[in-house]
């Protein structure tokens, strides 16, 4: 399965200034494992060392948030869009 990982501006420097990256895997976990091989500095900004999404990272697979349940088990269809966003977690300065 091949999917497109769409990146916010703050992360593009870790992908050679690209706005999107092609990754492979039938689940979100497998796709991010592939990303870890391809661009490890980018992957570690999305997941911690236990493979969990960082607390303030939002991901959507074909428009559906994967925050709840078991995000890494989310099915990723061929041609899917995986959208990454920083959570709107303002309030601090």
């Amino acid at each position, binding site marked *: 399965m091949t999917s497109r990982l769409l990146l916010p501006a*703050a*992360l593009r420097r870790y992908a050679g200034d690209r706005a999107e990256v092609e990754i492979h895997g039938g689940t979100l976990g497998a796709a991010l494992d592939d990303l870890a091989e391809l661009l*490890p*500095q980018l992957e*570690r*900004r*999305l997941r*911690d*060392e*236990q493979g*969990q999404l*960082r607390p*303030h*990272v939002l991901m959507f697979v074909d428009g559906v948030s994967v925050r709840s349940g078991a995000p890494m088990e989310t099915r990723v269809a061929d041609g899917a869009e995986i959208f990454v966003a*920083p*959570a709107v*977690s303002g309030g601090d*300065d």
Partner: protein
Amino acid sequence: MGLAILLIGTRKGLMLARSTDDRRTWATSDFQFLNQEVYSVAIDTRHDPPRIFAGVGTGHWGPLLTYSDDLGRSWTEPEEPPIGFPQGSDAAVARVWQVQPAPDGQPDVVYAGVEPHALFRSDDRGESFALVEGLWQHPHRPSWMPGGGGACLHTVLPHPTDPDDVMVVMSAAGVYHTRDGGVSWEPANRGIQAKFLPEDQRFPEFGQCVHKVAFHPDRPQRLFAQNHFGVYRSEDRGGSWVPIESGLPSNFGFALVAHPHRPDVLYNFPLQADAERFPPEAKLRVYRTEDAGANWEPLSKGLPTDAYYGAVLRDAMVADSRDPAGVYFGTRIGEVYASRDEGDTWSLIAEHLPDVLSLRVAEVA
């Protein structure tokens, strides 16, 4: 003196200040790591070129431990994450609170203290770190509480000559000590009061919120501690502690700095109380003892005389290694002051910064 460099870690980035005239004037650089907290900085002068470390919190994107071998002009992030809990440990590094190069006899060893309470050790100059399992597996760990800033291991104190002897300080777990290179750890809090506990439980074996411990390398048996209410001295490397706060306007605070050459000299920055984290009487003053805590004197010559409400955090006061010693502190309202005469007089060297979290200084050329 050639080039002195002062690292200024702030809530929203890192600034470097350089002095080439024996610390008379300082030139500051552009801000780096914009909008990212820099809780820990270190300068490792054991190799040439010196290596600068920065423990950076990237907000949404997790913590980062990075280094520079060209005095901050460029930064290296290893391909493999340099620091992280082993798979299956059910923990992830939330913040790097301290980066501490070991003494000269261990030129490749670097320690890192992190949140949650854990110690990491590098044997390759900070390229990669391994969890110190002896502390992580300590039977007390499930009972360690977070301090107000988090469950942090914020201070690492390697013995200057014995590589197996290391002390760590954690909020709110207290002081722990290993004499076997990290295999086993003993609490070292006897005599330190946990004022926030019920009255009959205020001297526990562990659980104190010790904010900082400092010692002079020529006298490693003597330690000084700034506690969450209480300033203490130990003459037996943490075996027992006695109060030395008489003469201070408050026994609350964070920053505590040992003099680089004179084992009886210590600097302290008192704050009014935990619920009033301001300089006592809103007067910006550093306190110095020259007799290991028997007497204290306020130092304020050159500091602002109007009301001042900026606190100084635990790693935001340091001394250099010169003689006479330089002393530096940064405040939570973004000012950095320096003294090149052991604290007798002060001058402002940086201002209008975000709140200052960490300072380190070294002579690098």
